[in-house]
């Protein structure tokens, strides 16, 4: 139990660390207002940055969060965001991410089955080439190719397209892991023993092999959640979806420093939450994890 609490504590401590690191990075930005600089910001804007971040005030690093919880707008009035708007945008991105996760699992299963079926045939080379093509394709490229067709149609089509293009690489990545883990487990003695005792292949797979494959898949969920959310940034930008990714990119482009601090911390919190859920699921499905805790 104590070990579990230590692990949870280690995950949770990441959130204030990210909050402080992003705050102090933003607070230390040199904002040039001198004439000799090529890219200066106006003195009013520089003052607004300082106000937003509470620079020079006692406990100034809490200023963005105070504003957020009071329902005030973060950033300059025209382009800022309130806490409610932030949550709404985050829910949009998470929704797209959840659909992408479902699609990624479909890709993963299809790819794993394809790879195990064609392992020794003439199509075996596709098992290596497909991951390279998927990995070598940044999310924005398929989004760019599909954008002209879907952007103007609406009716959730841009959201579905965003989920589709975001899911490809994580799906193939997960499929590769799944195929490798399946191959390793299927070659083990206990599978032969179970089959020789007359169990049907499906039953062997479901009852004996899959419980041993699940921990490998759970290990991949963390990086996959990161790539799903980060991938949705690019898709949202290209497909014009007004969600969290779009908000983040615009905040960086427009130097909305307080929004960047809060959004970065919120993003880290989502990842920490995913990490904690994965830990909990691992405890539920993997007896070895429970034994390790004990």
């Amino acid at each position, binding site marked *: 139990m104590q070990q579990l609490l230590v692990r949870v504590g280690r995950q949770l401590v990441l959130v204030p660390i990210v909050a402080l690191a992003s705050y102090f990075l933003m607070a230390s930005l*040199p904002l040039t207002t001198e004439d000799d*600089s090529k890219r200066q910001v106006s003195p009013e804007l520089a003052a607004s940055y300082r106000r937003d971040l509470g620079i020079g005030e006692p406990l100034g690093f809490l200023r963005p969060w105070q504003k957020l919880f009071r329902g005030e707008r973060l950033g300059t009035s025209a382009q800022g965001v309130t806490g409610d708007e932030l949550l709404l945008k985050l829910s949009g991105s998470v929704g797209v991410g959840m659909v992408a996760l479902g699609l990624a699992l479909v890709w993963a299963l299809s790819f794993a089955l394809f790879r195990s079926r064609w392992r020794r045939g003439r199509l075996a080379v596709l098992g290596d080439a497909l*991951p390279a093509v998927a990995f070598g394709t940044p*999310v*924005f490229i398929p989004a760019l190719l599909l954008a002209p067709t879907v952007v103007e149609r609406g009716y959730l089509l841009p959201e579905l397209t965003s989920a589709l293009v975001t899911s490809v690489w994580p799906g193939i990545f997960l499929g590769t892991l799944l195929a490798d883990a399946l191959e390793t487990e299927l070659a083990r003695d206990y599978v032969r023993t179970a089959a020789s005792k007359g169990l049907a292949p499906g039953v062997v797979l479901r009852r004996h092999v899959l419980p041993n494959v699940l921990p490998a898949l759970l290990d991949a969920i963390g990086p996959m959640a990161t790539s799903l959310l*980060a991938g949705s940034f690019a898709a949202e930008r290209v497909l014009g979806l007004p969600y969290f990714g779009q908000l983040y990119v615009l905040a960086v482009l427009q130097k909305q420093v307080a929004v960047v601090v809060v959004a970065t911390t919120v993003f880290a919190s989502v990842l920490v939450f995913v990490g904690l859920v994965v830990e909990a699921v691992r405890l539920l499905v993997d007896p070895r994890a429970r034994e390790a805790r004990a």
Partner: protein
Amino acid sequence: MSRIPARAWVGLLLLGGLGALSLLMGRLFPEVLASSCPLGSDLTRPDRTVCELAFGGLWISLAIGLAAGGLSTGLGLGVAAVARLAGGALERWVMRLADSFFALPDVLVVMVLQLAGQSLVDAGGGAGLGPFGLMVVSLALVGWAGPARMFRNRLSTLEGQEFVAASRALGGSRFHVLRVHLWPALLPFVLAVFLSRLPAAILAESTVSFFGIARMEPMSLGRYLGTSYAALIYEGGPRIVIPAWTLLVLLVLGASLSSQALGTGVRKG
């Protein structure tokens, strides 16, 4: 050192070929592409053909990938070596720090670092770093944690081998063991890790540049696609997207093939 697998050669040849092609077509003889490109000119840069922009972008993307991959591998190696040499609590804390870095999404942190770096450069600081240097440093600062973790684990495994124990028993210092015994055994793995960082750096740079956050000039593949964004939407753009996409895929394919083959070969060897 074990024999280099054939797949690694294929990957390295593909990378080398793309590098040579981008140097010849993108840098040395761009006029050949200007006069013979079947894909026509770019809508946002009518003075340049799509082929010129794609091969020019490939050269920049490759250079960023090599520099950032090399720097992050070097940083990771340094951190892992220091952690192993120090041992104890310092090693645990350094590795925990690496884990927390590892958990952060590359693209997001690179965007924030670009914002900070550009403000620094605009204010006359930045130690003379241009957009290229700024991108390389940002990618290296984000990318050191993965290599550090891998090198530390590899060093830990190698240190358990008999020849290392024998060297220690004969009075070899930790630094001597690291330099004479561990480093030669680690070298192929270093190359594999460097090659695995290459596509990650290229893709992260492409995405950040596509958003218009980096001010890369001449343009990388990502920035080229980002600047053509509006034209692509209105024109329906496969003509503009596909050459850059193909080059990116080939680049990543070459790096992945050689990295995986070297990594597997080394584990078997």
